[in-house]
């Protein structure tokens, strides 16, 4: 299983739709301060089901919706889609390619989709439960978080091994 594509539209600083295509190997994302690199990492975390606004640097979840800039007015919705390939054996779905989509409206209303079919947040969380995807300190390391594993209590560290086992 591997990451194929990520689309962000109205998510944080992505006031216009942006699409990233991924290949095997190492992808480096580069650019100036405040350009949107960590926002991409937040987009991945969010579409995989992150429920804490704080861990996305927001006060409320609506903070992830594009708030406007000098050049463009605020948007009413944030949407992120993540597409994985080679899923047939790994995910319990019978498809080789799987796209998960998450939308949030200013009203607070949310939508979740798997391969364009509406579902609940729970379905997305269940889908990825045993893959380790989206887990901080394992498949996601946030900015400034690399030494969290050293700062953690020894019992918490042991849990990381247990989850891997």
């Amino acid at each position: 299983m591997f990451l194929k594509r990520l689309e962000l539209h109205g998510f944080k600083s992505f006031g216009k739709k942006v699409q990233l295509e991924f290949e095997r190997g190492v992808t480096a994302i580069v650019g100036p301060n405040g350009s949107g690199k960590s926002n991409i990492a937040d987009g991945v975390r969010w579409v995989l089901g992150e429920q804490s606004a704080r861990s996305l640097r927001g006060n409320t979840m609506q903070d992830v919706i594009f708030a406007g800039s000098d050049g463009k007015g605020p948007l009413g919705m944030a949407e992120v889609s993540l597409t994985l390939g080679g899923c047939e054996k790994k995910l319990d779905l019978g498809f080789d390619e799987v796209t998960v989509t998450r939308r949030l409206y200013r009203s607070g209303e949310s939508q979740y989709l798997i391969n364009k079919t509406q579902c609940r947040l729970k379905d997305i969380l269940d889908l990825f439960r045993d893959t380790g995807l989206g887990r901080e300190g394992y498949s996601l390391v946030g900015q400034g978080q690399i030494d969290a594993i050293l700062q953690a209590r020894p019992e918490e560290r042991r849990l990381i091994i247990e989850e891997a086992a």
Partner: protein
Amino acid sequence: SKTKFSETFREVQREFQSIFVKLFGGGAAKLHLSEAEKAEEAGLEISIRLPGKRMQNMNLLSGGERALTAISLQFALLRVKPSPFCVLDEIDATLDEGNLGRFAKLLSEFAQDTQLIMITHRLGSMEAADILYGVTMNRENISQLVAVQLEAAAAVLGE
């Protein structure tokens, strides 16, 4: 189960030791489980010895040494239980050029089995990448993707 845990633990222990020595160019690293009455109170203890130095309290490590130790453990976990992909945000920020070079070598090794997405400001990490995505703010102050050539990135970084 208890045996699966011991097995996983031993593998992580082995990988941690080996990756640590690769990244630091020497020294030694050990993981051990502390004794506890209840299983949930057992802790994962880390003890390391940097090349040429004596075993010391982990807190006395420098910023870069802490980062490299954490990276060793992180990548040991990823080798034992690979994730389909990883997003790593500026984990190389505090490494000096020597450590960065060894880290970049490790990335190339890992790229075979795990898709690594590295947000970085460091040329050494960019050179280890197969693909480079540039992100900038456009005139309307919206994030956009731009094509990046390594030579151009090097120039911007003043290198």
